[in-house]
């Protein structure tokens, strides 16, 4: 065997060839991960309701009925991303975990709005689509009360619903990284970008109708440009020999690149009513002719805050606690980012068990306790 001259410590031709083959294999793997979609959302489910683009799924229970929690759980995710982040892949799925813990789990999928949906507003989603889906959920489950988990923009929708319809059977409200308070503008990067001096929302909507998913994704990535445009891919290339990390990266990349547009009416409200004027927390937000008063929320409340969240800084989510009428409320602060707290590697160890424990104590037949 000959050594390759010039290499430190000597390097044989065979080893060089093996290294070259290994490098080629790694490149092939990277190409596959970057150009294909991972198998995601594998937990078995059935479609039980649909309206326009929205769909309500029920996950097939795996726990016998007598051992199941009688209060069903509805998951509501953001409007501009696919909700299967909650059921990313087997072994790393919040839905799979909750189903295995005996919950009757339902998932709201808002779908992808078309040009005909450009005028849809928060009012429509929270007070038309969501109540209809909940009506079906109650009909199918036979329950009169339910729990609802809202994440990101989904938390705005669920807060809106809980405030406007406090007597419709909502027992437990879980809010994850909820962008509700926009008063500390200096801490919220999106507030800078959507300032009326620099950003003409009407011009954008005149051009696009709905806010394109690509623009929203680009905006979210620009909050941390180095990490998202560079660091993310470097992490993949550094770990191409680790199948677990590659699989996880592939699934997450599949989700990140599968964004959907945001209905024009919702985007306008998000920028004007919330980012610019903080109308929800000021108590001046009017939807369907009714003022949204968060003090009317009386459901048990768990607010989960991601300490390292750059999309929804903690200051946006923590102030709701002091404004609601709920007697049973908890603020749970956890290390992690906006998505990482629910879909990251630590989620199964930290966030999910806490949500399960909190919900378990409040999903019994008589209001508290277990079955």
């Amino acid at each position, binding site marked *: *065997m000959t050594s390759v001259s010039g290499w430190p*410590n000597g390097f044989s031709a065979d080893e060089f060839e093996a290294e070259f083959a290994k490098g080629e294999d790694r490149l092939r793997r990277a190409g596959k991960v970057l150009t294909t979609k991972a198998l995601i959302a594998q937990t078995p489910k059935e479609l039980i309701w649909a309206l326009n683009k929205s769909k309500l799924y029920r996950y*097939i229970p795996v726990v016998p009925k007598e051992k199941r929690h009688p209060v069903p759980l509805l998951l509501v995710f953001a409007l501009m991303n696919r909700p299967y982040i909650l059921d990313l892949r087997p072994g790393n799925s919040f839905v799979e975990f909750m189903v295995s813990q005996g919950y009757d789990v339902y998932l709201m999928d808002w779908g992808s709005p078309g*040009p005909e949906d450009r005028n849809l507003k928060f009012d429509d989603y929270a007070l038309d689509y969501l109540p209809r889906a909940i009506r079906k959920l109650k009909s199918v489950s036979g329950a009169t009360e339910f729990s609802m988990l809202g994440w990101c923009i989904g938390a705005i929708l669920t807060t809106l619903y809980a405030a406007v319809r406090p007597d419709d059977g909502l027992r437990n409200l879980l809010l994850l990284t909820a962008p509700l308070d926009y008063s500390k503008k200096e801490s919220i*990067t999106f507030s*800078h970008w959507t300032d009326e001096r*620099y950003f003409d929302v009407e011009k954008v909507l005149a051009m696009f109708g709905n806010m394109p998913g690509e623009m929203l994704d680009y905006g979210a990535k620009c909050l*941390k440009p180095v990490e998202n445009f560079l*660091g993310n891919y470097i992490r993949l290339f550094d770990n191409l020999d680790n199948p677990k990390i590659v699989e996880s990266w592939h699934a997450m990349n599949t989700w990140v690149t599968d964004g959907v547009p945001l209905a024009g009416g919702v985007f306008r409200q998000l920028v004007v009513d919330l980012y610019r004027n903080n109308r929800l927390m000021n108590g001046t937000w009017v939807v369907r002719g009714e003022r949204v008063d968060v003090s009317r929320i009386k459901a048990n409340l768990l607010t989960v805050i991601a300490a390292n969240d750059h999309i929804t800084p903690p200051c946006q989510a923590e102030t709701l606690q002091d404004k609601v009428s709920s007697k049973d409320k908890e603020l749970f602060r956890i290390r992690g980012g906006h998505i990482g707290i629910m879909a990251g590697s630590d989620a199964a160890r930290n966030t999910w068990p806490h949500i399960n424990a909190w919900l378990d104590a409040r999903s019994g037949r008589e209001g508290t306790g277990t079955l």
Partner: protein
Amino acid sequence: MSESNNEGKVFDPFEVWRGMRNAGMDAWAKTMTEAVNTDEYAKASGALLDAYLTASIPLRELLEKAMSQALRQMNMPTRDDVISLAERMTQVEMRLDDMDAKLDGLSRQPSESAHAEASAAEPLHAEALPAEPPHAEPLHAEPPPAELLQEKPPQVGPPPVEPPRVEPSPEKPPTRKATRKEAKEQ
């Protein structure tokens, strides 16, 4: 034969570069994250977007107008026509959803009483046929929202027709012809 490495470790030509990269990455990321959270960045990105929109919107409107005219000439539906149809479809879907909820409520009542009579009989697929409440819950709490009252959509489909009453023949009222015949005989 030469040893590849004294410690059994293969030389990685990228290791030096990787070390340099990692050293600078965190500082660079922090600087950039702070930079995008400034008014200057917001102003610059806003100006870029505005320039793009100012150039694109008139072009888009022109294209849309030309396309609409061409499609009309060919007796084909335009984008606006399709959008309008889709909006109407959603309205119809909402009415259907309300009807579905009412039917759910109606269909549940007899099944519940039957279930009470034969409580020993277990459903074949307990999961597929979940227990349901006795009545459909109204979507809107009373009173219904003002907009629903204001814009009442046209009724979808024909008006409900009452089924003809079928009664036993002895109680059947005499027809007009029979009455005349009877009168003649009398």
